[in-house]
């Protein structure tokens, strides 16, 4: 028990020592470290701005997908018995939550209501041009666009159905653009990740060169590579964490200014932008710490090989 206490005391002492050395190094090489932290911060800002866009665009897509409904327009002059048969067939299909019949008369009435002042145009019609239709809502699980498309194809094959329409057909095209942007986001994230690693690696290399003699002396007195490397790794982690926090803070500031303006313009709930969830914020900071660590690892590996 005593031994375990001693070991943990010793580990705390060693960690404290490494942290002190790392902080001392950061203070000594203030300019280099500031440049590195700002670079990581900018990279984090750009990558997290993309993430913010993707998260909010994803939310929007999901909201739109929820609103997907299909209209199955029937062929003209269909008998009621046939109509009921069509309704039964549609209801038996998987993923259907609700089905409602809208007669051509009701449809015209609705159209007149929606057109209000322009409804006079419709007065000149001698015949109702609108067909009978079924309004179909889908279950939550079946709101995926691909499933909607599949259902639309099935509906079109039902005898007596003339045409199937779903208002958010454009959503498919938007989804393609969204996926392309997400892919671009990953690529940009990857590029900035590599750039940040490269810059951290170079900063640490410069620090290593400035302390070459000191490292050589430490090796001569019997310090292990681990003992020499540990403060640098802590330095990298601190740089990464600081860069990550600065990047996220800058993004939050931008979000605060932009989002409040946008939400004022769209005073309804039409467009709500939310900030990155805490899990993603934490992941970004951890990722930037990893960038700092990796930069150190690459430099130290090369430098201490000799």
């Amino acid at each position, binding site marked *: 028990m005593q031994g375990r206490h001693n070991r943990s005391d*010793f580990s705390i*002492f*060693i960690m404290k*020592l490494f942290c002190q050395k790392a902080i001392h190094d950061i203070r*000594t090489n203030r300019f280099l470290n500031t440049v590195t932290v700002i670079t990581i911060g900018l990279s984090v800002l750009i990558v997290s701005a993309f993430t913010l866009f993707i998260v909010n665009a994803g939310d929007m897509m999901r909201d739109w997908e929820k609103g997907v409904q299909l209209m199955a327009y029937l062929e003209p002059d269909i008998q009621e018995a046939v109509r009921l048969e069509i309704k039964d067939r549609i209801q038996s299909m998987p993923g259907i939550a609700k089905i409602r019949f809208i007669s051509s008369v009701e449809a015209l009435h609705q159209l007149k209501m929606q057109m209000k002042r322009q409804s006079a145009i419709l007065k000149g019609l001698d015949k109702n041009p609108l067909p009978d239709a079924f309004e179909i809502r889908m279950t939550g699980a079946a709101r995926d666009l691909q499933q909607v498309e599949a259902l639309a194809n099935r509906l079109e094959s039902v005898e007596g159905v003339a045409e199937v329409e779903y208002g958010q057909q454009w959503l498919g095209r938007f989804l393609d653009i969204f996926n392309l942007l997400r892919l671009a986001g990953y690529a940009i994230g990857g590029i900035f990740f590599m750039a940040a690693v490269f810059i951290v690696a170079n900063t640490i290399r410069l620090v290593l060169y400035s302390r070459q*003699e*000191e490292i050589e*002396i*430490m*090796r*001569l*007195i*019997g*310090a*292990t*590579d681990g*003992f020499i490397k540990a403060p640098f790794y802590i330095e990298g982690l601190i740089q990464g964490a600081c860069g990550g926090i600065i990047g996220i803070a800058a993004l939050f500031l931008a979000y605060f200014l932009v989002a409040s303006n946008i939400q004022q313009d769209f005073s309804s709930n039409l467009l709500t932008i939310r900030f990155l969830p805490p899990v993603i914020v934490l992941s970004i900071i951890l990722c930037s710490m990893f960038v700092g660590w990796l930069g150190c690892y690459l430099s130290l590996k090369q430098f201490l090989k000799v």
Partner: protein
Amino acid sequence: MIEQKGKTAIIRIFHVHKQYGAKKALTDITLDVLKNDFLFINGPSGAGKTTLLKLLYRGEPVSEGQILIDGLNLSRISRRRIPFLRRQFGIIFQDYKLIPTKTVFENISIVLESRGKKRRFIEKKINSLLRTVGMADRRDAFPPSLSGGEQQRIAVARAVAGDPKIILADEPTGSLDNESASIIIKLLKQFHTRGATIIIATHDRQLIRETGGRVIQLSQGQLRFVTFQETVKTDPADAGPT
């Protein structure tokens, strides 16, 4: 192990050769250094003194031959074990090799920190060492603010901080005045009486005559002879590096 008057060899060198490209730095060196020996490696510049010391602490690998340190074969030692080998040595350099950005205390404490010693122990040990080398009042000074002799005393304190079995000194008095040089030699003798094996590489014959001990003579990378030098007392005012 070779035994001589009850002493065992702590360092055994067998037919060691060292080459830098086409240039031969050491040729066929065979030598035993006994425990608690006080050994001088003498020879002119370029004789291979520093190279021989470097081979001992594995600063350089041998080109041919074998070296055993306290039974450990350096040819078979892995890279990861080198720091642990070096902990058996305390090394003193002509140019002191102190870290200029660290205080006297910090320069010595690295040795003990790297061995995982606790703060309280480090404080106690360094205070005691600084008293021994007469530098207790310069604990918080930075090396550039010290004289050459003072810096070398700190280097000696650092070399012995880890209680090494062997102290290697490469021209330890080479850049010092007579008074500082005699302080350094006195300190080395003091640690010798405490049981350490001392190996000093020097071209200074006067220093050898005044100090006394076993002497090996190197010339153009070859071991010429091994002798024993009795101490010859001289007036310190006359003594000086040649």
